[in-house]
């Protein structure tokens, strides 16, 4: 939603509580307004400080958040940013992430209410990633970096506090996953041999963006392969798994390629598009690998795309090679990450509003 058509919603209510960290956290715990971790008390002063960096009016409606379709106003986003411990400078990135998850192509209703463990992975690109010190190198999806930890956490709090996705209520996740606390990193653009993710997705290099991904989890791929053919083969064999939403629906699998692995692929003369095309071929899986019941789901979901589906049909992991998504992240080491995705969702990229 752009500023020319600002919609507004009701202001957040002011709740009075004893000026005491334990008392405030007790209140948040009782009302299920937290993710299970202690929160930073959202005092009027802290929220106002956050709002000064929003670059949008406080009443402005950024999005309606499924499944409760609560109003994510700038003010409510700011409150959740405070709860999560965000620096005020993160606000424009967080607002862009909220816009992105609300895009119908992302299928937030499905992502929020499903039994699947899907979490929202936030990828930051462009100059702002460095400015905000979003980690793209060592342990970038692990702990230890303030921006990664709090930006991802703030989005999760928005999804539950505004979107109403409380575990066991409207969030029906069977187990969930640790990424539902926070899942955010930047792309390692400096060490990537390819164009950055946001440039590949149509933005200019000097723009800053967030990309949101419906991520089922992370699968580490530790391989010392030095040959591109060998490397792609083992990556593909990791991606092939029959109990998969991606094969069921035609998904959007993601790869977080380590700089060392990216370098091997680039030195073999492979562009990102080449890598995608090869992986799309290498990950074809006989339909007979799926459970009989799951094969019925595949037939229901993909017959129009693939024609008659029998046990010998070679199922593709995605509708087309370009639906395999690649970003480069991490520090030194021979570990890349396969991020299987929700299937019925497409990643969305949004530009972060520039300063001034």
């Amino acid at each position: 939603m752009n500023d020319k058509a600002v919609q507004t919603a009701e202001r957040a209510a002011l709740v009075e509580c004893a000026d005491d960290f334990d008392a405030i956290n007790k209140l948040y715990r009782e009302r299920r307004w937290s993710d299970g971790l202690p929160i930073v008390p959202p005092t009027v002063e802290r929220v106002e400080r956050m709002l000064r960096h929003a670059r949008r009016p406080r009443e402005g409606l950024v999005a309606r958040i499924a499944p409760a379709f609560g109003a994510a106003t700038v003010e409510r986003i700011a409150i959740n940013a405070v709860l999560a411990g965000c620096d005020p400078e993160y606000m424009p990135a967080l607002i862009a992430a909220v816009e992105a998850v609300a895009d119908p192509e992302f299928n937030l209703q499905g992502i929020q209410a499903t039994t699947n463990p899907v979490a929202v992975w936030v990828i930051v690109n462009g100059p702002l990633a460095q400015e905000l010190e979003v980690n793209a190198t060592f342990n970038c999806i692990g702990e230890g970096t303030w921006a990664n930890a709090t930006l991802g956490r703030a989005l999760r709090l928005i999804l539950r506090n505004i979107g109403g996705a409380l575990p066991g209520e409207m969030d029906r996740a069977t187990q969930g996953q640790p990424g539902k606390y926070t899942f955010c990193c930047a792309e390692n653009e400096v060490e990537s041999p390819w164009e950055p993710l946001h440039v590949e997705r149509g933005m200019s290099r000097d723009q800053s963006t967030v990309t949101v991904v419906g991520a089922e989890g992370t699968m580490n791929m530790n391989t010392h392969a030095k040959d591109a053919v060998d490397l792609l083969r083992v990556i593909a064999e990791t991606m092939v798994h029959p109990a998969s939403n991606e094969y069921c629906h035609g998904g959007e699998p993601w790869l977080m390629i380590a700089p060392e692995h990216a370098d091997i692929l680039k030195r073999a003369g492979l562009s990102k598009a080449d890598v995608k095309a090869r992986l799309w071929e290498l990950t074809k899986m006989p339909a007979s690998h799926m459970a009989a019941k799951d094969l019925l789901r595949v037939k229901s979901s993909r017959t129009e795309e693939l024609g008659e589906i029998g046990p010998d049909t070679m199922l593709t992991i995605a509708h087309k090679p370009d639906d395999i998504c690649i970003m480069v992240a991490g520090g030194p080491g021979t570990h890349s990450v396969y991020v299987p995705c929700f299937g019925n969702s497409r990643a969305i990229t949004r530009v972060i509003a520039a300063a001034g």
Partner: protein
Amino acid sequence: MAKRGRAALTICSTAFITLGRAQASALGYAKLPIAVIQHPFGIRTRDEVRAMADKCATEVVRLLSEGTAK
């Protein structure tokens, strides 16, 4: 549909009834009739599923009739 005056209901399994009720309330129609099917049904035989569907169809008719009678 219900807000437009048409008879409407939703069908969901017992595992999703909390979601159904909460979302109906969130969307401003807390009284939305919901026909409920025992969860899980993916592991049941075809005959068992057919029996559940018959029972559910009866429930759907009942809920819709109640809605129109008001």
